């Protein structure tokens, strides 16, 4: 029971321990609570760096595995393990949480204690989702993480928070219940095939079901994750949830929670049901492309900045899904990287919008204009994040989008041609927003004496900016971590593709796994 053997459990439950201890801090002592939770989350981040140090990017299997019987009667295990995909998402979670806590310092003005503690609970849930290898454990974390988010939106949200929180909750529950049914079906299907019952994901990968069954199971999983991602047309909860959620909630929602959907596709839905996945592949890709264009077009017309960023998420996550559906190493690498990128840049955008909201208590575009003059630092940071979001080369967004588009071009040029328009539209709506908020003359009296970012706010933004530049300039370490995860994903899903009719997914000019040039 050493530190290294149980490192994942430690990372998962450390925030929860923090919650237990933090519960003893009196409610009135607000700064103590803030500092305490911040320190807990920072310690958590440092501990999670341990994973990076000991992560072996050349190994193909799961690492840091833990396995204990949990409910032996039903063969439910407490089984953890991560690969490159989970590692990056866990790091993203532990990286964003302290920033979110620090960013909420002055934003939250009621029930501070509960707010900060709920965030730690949320962190436990999120990391648990990314680390569990047992389907029931996964499901438990998946549902558990809904509760803190529901409460964060519902208690600290905007005027229509109840509507948004309920919408968020019901949408997600609807999907996950279908998933639960599918999980249980899988359990019995595996049992009837092999005689042993298990929820172990790694064993279930080897289960081969007939097409007709796979279709239904895949549909259940895919719908659940599609809502979470969200894939068009299941996206309408997102703008509402984002607009009403407090800044911290939005950041985590966009930064991490949406990734659970894409993670689900990559970890569960696609590899578990390869035949069905291949049958659904073109449809999902088309939905992703519709999402890219549609999200961008709708974002273009939003009068509310936060709603705009929310719709841009729909567009960006369309890219991720497209990357996953293109099924070649470049696109999948790009998709995973784009998950991280989106977490960083959209998270940062939400934080920045939150800072603006804190000053002006409005998010209407028409209320702003000419702010670059009064808030130069803010304007600069916003510009960098905007550029990252529209995929300017040299910043993180480009690497992901480039790989995704390149890979999807290999898979089917039409995908890339259509999805590529999203790149243009992305520039249109982001620059339009930037211009409306920051450029022009100050027309609104209220904007004349806005104070620029405080030191604390700058500290919140700097780590994100560093990551944005780092991934843009030197993405290799990240790609190395991702590499084996995406390769095994392709291996699980691909073989059936070959049988199912190459022509559909492999146009004549596409590569047959080309050699590397020395």
């Amino acid at each position: 029971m050493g530190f290294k053997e149980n490192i994942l459990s430690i990372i998962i439950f450390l925030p929860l321990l923090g919650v237990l201890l933090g519960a003893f801090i009196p409610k009135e002592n607000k700064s103590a609570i803030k500092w305490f939770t911040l320190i807990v989350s920072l310690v958590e981040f440092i501990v999670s760096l341990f994973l990076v140090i000991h992560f072996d990017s050349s190994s193909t299997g799961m690492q840091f595995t833990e396995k204990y019987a949990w409910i032996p009667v039903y063969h439910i295990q407490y089984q953890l393990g991560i690969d490159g995909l989970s590692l990056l998402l866990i790091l993203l979670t532990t990286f964003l949480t302290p920033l979110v806590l620090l960013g909420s310092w002055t934003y939250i003005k009621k029930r501070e204690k509960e707010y900060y503690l709920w965030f730690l609970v949320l962190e436990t849930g999120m990391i648990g989702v990314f680390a569990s290898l047992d389907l029931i454990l996964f499901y438990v974390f998946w549902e558990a993480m809904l509760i803190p988010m529901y409460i964060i939106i519902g208690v600290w949200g905007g005027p229509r928070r109840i509507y948004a929180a309920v919408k968020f909750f019901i949408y997600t529950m609807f999907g996950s219940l279908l998933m639960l049914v599918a999980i249980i079906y899988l359990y019995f299907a595996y049992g009837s095939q092999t005689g042993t019952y298990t929820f172990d994901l790694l064993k279930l990968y080897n289960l081969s079901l007939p097409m007709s069954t796979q279709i239904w199971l895949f549909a259940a999983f895919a719908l659940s994750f599609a809502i979470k991602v969200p894939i068009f047309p299941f996206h309408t909860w997102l703008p509402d949830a984002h607009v009403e959620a407090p800044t911290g909630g939005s950041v985590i929602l966009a930064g991490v929670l949406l990734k659970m959907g894409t993670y689900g596709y990559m970890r569960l839905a696609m590899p578990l049901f390869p035949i069905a996945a291949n049958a659904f592949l073109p449809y999902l890709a088309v939905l992703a492309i519709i999402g890219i264009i549609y999200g961008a077009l709708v974002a273009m017309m939003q009068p509310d900045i936060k709603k705009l960023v929310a719709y841009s998420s729909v567009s960006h996550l369309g890219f991720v899904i497209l990357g996953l559906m293109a099924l070649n190493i470049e696109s999948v690498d790009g998709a995973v990287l784009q998950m991280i990128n989106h977490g960083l840049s959209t998270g940062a955008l939400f934080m920045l919008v939150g800072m603006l909201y804190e000053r002006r208590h409005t998010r209407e575009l028409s209320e702003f204009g000419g702010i670059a003059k009064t808030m130069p630092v803010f304007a600069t940071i916003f510009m960098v994040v905007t550029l990252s979001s529209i995929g300017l080369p040299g910043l993180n967004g480009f690497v992901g989008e480039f790989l995704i588009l390149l890979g999807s071009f290999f898979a089917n040029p039409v995908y890339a041609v259509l999805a590529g328009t999203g790149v243009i539209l992305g520039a249109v709506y982001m620059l339009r927003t930037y211009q409306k908020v920051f450029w022009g003359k100050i027309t609104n009296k209220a904007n004349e004496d806005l104070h620029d970012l405080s030191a604390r706010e700058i500290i919140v933004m700097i780590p994100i900016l560093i990551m944005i530049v780092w991934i843009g300039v030197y993405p290799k370490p990240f790609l190395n971590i991702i590499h084996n995860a995406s390769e095994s994903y392709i291996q699980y899903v691909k073989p059936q593709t070959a049988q199912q009719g190459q022509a559909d997914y492999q146009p004549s000019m596409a590569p047959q796994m080309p050699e590397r040039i020395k």
Partner: protein
Amino acid sequence: MELNIVRYILIFPLLGFLVNGLVGKRLGNKAVGWIANSAVFISFALVVYIFIQLLSMAPGSRLITDTVYTWINSGSLTIDFKLMIDPLTIVMLLVVTGVGFLIHIYSIGYMHGDRSYSRFFAYLNLFMFSMLLLVLSSNIVLMFVGWEGVGLCSYLLIGFWYEKDSAANAGKKAFITNRVGDYGFLLGLFLLASAFASKGILTLDFTTMAAHISLISPQILTIVGILLFVGATGKSAQLPLYVWLPDAMEGPTPVSALIHAATMVTAGVYMIARMNFLYVLAPEALEVVAIVGGLTALYAATIGLVQNDIKRVLAYSTISQLGYMFVGVGVGAFSAGIFHLMTHAFFKALLFLGAGSVIHALSGEQDMRKMGGLKNKIPVTHAVFLAAALAISGIPGLSGFFSKDSILAAAYASGHTVIWLLGFITALLTAFYIFRLIYMTFYGESRLDKHAAEHVHESPKVMTVPLIILAVLSVIGGYIGVPQLLGNLVGWHNSDIFVNFLAPVFRTMPKHEMPVSTESWLMIGSIAMAILGVFFAWYVYIKSKMRPAEHAAESLPGVYRLLLNKYYVDEVYNAIIIKPLLWMSENFLWKIFDVRVVDGTVNGSAQVTQWASTKLRKIQTGDFQVYVMLFLIGVISVLAYFVLR
């Protein structure tokens, strides 16, 4: 040859950007100017050093590379951060750093007293970095990084005075129009990559691609060529994506000179020259390039005839001259295109900076109708402006003559008679509009405002010295590329140094020989056109003192208005693309589809549930005896079912 100092060409402007951008405000304007200028100067010095190194190498093997690190690796795709210098690169580097440095110096004077002085120089340095990256990169993806980087700087610098709405709009327009082009560029890149990948060589490196290009079918190459050219039309302001460049004049004048005349807009030409190995195998694509170039040259020149804003005239002139360059590369005369690129960088930068000097002298006035008679008040500016005007008109002996003539000769020689004719007519128009500008600005009676007239002054040394240097370059710059025809007259063998220097870089198209007499006649013809243009301008604006604007407006109102309004292209784009898209997004996608259909479905199901509950709750009478009864009926029913079945 691997040479590690190449990377320092990039690093210094980047450092200048970081220092000026992060702490520039606290350093004071003087320090900011020094930092920015010395960063560019060091790069320039390094380039000169490498140029000398390059010259010392054998002509066939002039290639210097510098691999910094592996940037992206995914599967079989590896993209290195690798820099490369060959003769083509070094020409671009010299132009970019040389002209760039002069413009940096000029900016010290021009931007003097601006509130955002440090921001300006930070952007300029960032631009230098991106442009150098574009030029130096050894693979097409890295080139795209620079490509987008210069687009970003262009956006930031056009919108430099962001408080002006027109500037902000122009910046956005530039970026988005460029993005449309980049979309084509990216698709071309993808197609190229997948074509190579299907042959088992997934590469985007210029050298490797050049070595294996023959594996790929010409049809694909043609598509790739056209797609890449779409990118070039965006960046280099060709039809139909030229619309952003005239608006880009909202930026500070040094920016117009550096980015929108000398360097960035020529990136498209450079790209096609760099990809010559591909275009040579895709003659149809080259044909498209040449046709678009020729049409743009004529088209922009006609608009330039009637513009009244001094910088806009120059902007349309730039578009027109870029058209020439595309004609040059389009007919396969890559070195001629690059040669014109270089001379154009000299004289167009000079024209812009001169215009900046005029504007500076007139406290910001840009309308030529409110100028006139400035010749004696700002003599230095007048002199250099005249030199540049003569150069661009193609008056023999100046740089523009040599480069333009070699392009036209190549066009004619390769059988593109129509394109040659377009260029030929454009030569006349060019001479006319540029001398119209000269005459309206510097000659005739003064039409200045009272207020402006009092303050007319020559620019300080820091501005005029770069002007003079550029003027010298505009005059003599052509002599490195003297056509062999003229060289023979004075017994100078290999007079076309430039072409010979670049020759190893370019794949050659099938040679078209043409008789000496034809070439001579062509040359005489274009000289005649240039002189004719100057003469017309003199006749119209000085001799007869016609008010051609009014005249034209009366006699040919339709044509005049069409030209003045730039063929209504902006309006057409607005009406057929932008408005419908916005309308559809807002009114259909968002308000109907999103809110009504999707949310309607979701909320509708919630409402159905709620409606059903309000009806069903009537069952809940609150009367416990009814509950008892119902409960018992339920129990009994279950019991009855089990017993009676």
